[in-house]
């Protein structure tokens, strides 16, 4: 079990979504994918993708427009 960090700070549509998906594809069951970014819409849409993919959303944090989304891969 490891944590995979995805840095999408300063990236715009559709990059945060795409990079999250790439990381999830490479991850093994039990791994945590941690995405950080600043694109506002992606903060709403990454959790939607997590739901569609049947994965677990561990948490969302936000401070000064910088968000972090933690996803547990099954």
């Amino acid at each position, binding site marked *: 079990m490891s944590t995979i960090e995805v840095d999408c700070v*300063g990236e*715009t549509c*559709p990059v945060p*979504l*795409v990079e*999250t998906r790439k990381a999830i594809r490479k991850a093994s069951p039990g791994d945590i994918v941690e995405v950080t970014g600043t694109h506002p819409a992606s903060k709403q849409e990454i959790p*939607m*993708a997590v739901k569609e*993919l049947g994965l677990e959303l561990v948490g969302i944090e936000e401070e000064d427009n910088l968000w972090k989304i933690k996803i547990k891969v099954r």
Partner: protein
Amino acid sequence: MSKATIIVHSGDMDKLYSALIIGNGALAMGMDVSLYFTFWGLMRLKKGGLEKGALSRMNFLGLGKWMIKKQMKKANVRSLEGLFRDFRELGGKVIACDMTMEIMGIKKEDLQEDLITDYGAVGTYIKEAKESDITLFI
């Protein structure tokens, strides 16, 4: 699994962006995606042709395109080439229309073959579109 099938008929730069962004978004959401490149869209798959499309409106002999590209760079928008690589990496399929190739005299070696998954015709599209939840003509 749910599926999206998109016909890329236009070779305009902005429309190619739409097709690739929607395609990548659908893949990211866990869907299967096929892009069918035909007519002017297929021209963009020729070697060195990806970025050659004009803007569908307000191109102004390339000035409009230049301005949009400048704005896109400022906003850190990924290039068409980059979006295409993403699309393939996430398992998206790219089908080149063989009838367009025939009428426009395009050979396989004229195309960026590393971007293309398959060569097909309308039957392939209809079969896939029938099983799709989303189908678009761009």
